[in-house]
């Protein structure tokens, strides 16, 4: 027997109490990516030949470096959130879901770090 009232026992148990930031984060990053994605797409399609020096010159231009870093981080964040939703919807049972979520999270962190490392290395390598 508890002294807590019935209301006190159930208050706060109803919802996950989280998730709003997931919803908002997905949309804020989406708006960012609408711009960054179009910028990147246009840059790729106006690239001459993707020869090594041309690509290096493109990446190390300061404005491009910064936009590429922004793209890598925003894209990884947005992709992580989206992949999480898809895994939660379709992967069920036992350890499959937590392992898939963990693998996706790790993969996104690694991809983002590799991209950031590469851009910085090209940018600062004089």
């Amino acid at each position, binding site marked *: 027997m508890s002294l807590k009232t019935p209301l006190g026992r159930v208050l706060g148990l109803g919802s996950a109490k989280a998730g709003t930031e997931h919803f908002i984060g997905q*949309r804020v990053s*989406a*708006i960012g990516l*609408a711009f960054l*994605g*179009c910028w990147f*797409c246009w840059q790729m*399609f106006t690239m001459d030949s*993707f*020869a*090594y020096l041309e*690509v*290096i010159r493109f*990446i190390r231009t300061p404005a491009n470096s910064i936009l*590429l870093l922004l793209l*890598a981080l925003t*894209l*990884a964040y947005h*992709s992580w959130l*989206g*992949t999480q939703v*898809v895994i939660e919807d379709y992967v069920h049972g036992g350890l499959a879901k937590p392992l898939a979520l963990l693998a996706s999270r790790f*993969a*996104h962190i690694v*991809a*983002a770090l*590799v*991209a950031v*490392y*590469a*851009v910085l*290395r*090209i940018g600062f*390598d004089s």
Partner: protein
Amino acid sequence: MTNPDRPLSPHLSIYRWPITMVLSILHRVTGISMAVGLVVFAAWLMYAASGPEKYQYFREVMSSPPGILLLVLWTLAFFIHLGNGIRHLVWDSGHGFEIPQANASAWIVLVFAGLATALLWVMQL
């Protein structure tokens, strides 16, 4: 409670797909395919950071026919996801939920994505 004679509601394989359902599925498929694209994007930068010989290897793989096919599909995926993402943002603002509007916006997204992809790749020829 099991009654084998109860009428079953038609499932995916039975009824004609509404266009809104096609777009909903495509949004997820294109999103996941671009998650894979993120890996290739990171690889592109990393190969470029690893010197001319390593980069040349990446360039040859991506300019092979299967590589080009992937790039075309990623372009299409990008524009479908972009168009449908904007459609979702409009929905988030509370507009466009009437069925004729939702059907029309679905077709607009598909036509836009097809045209944008075709235009950019024809430019490359």
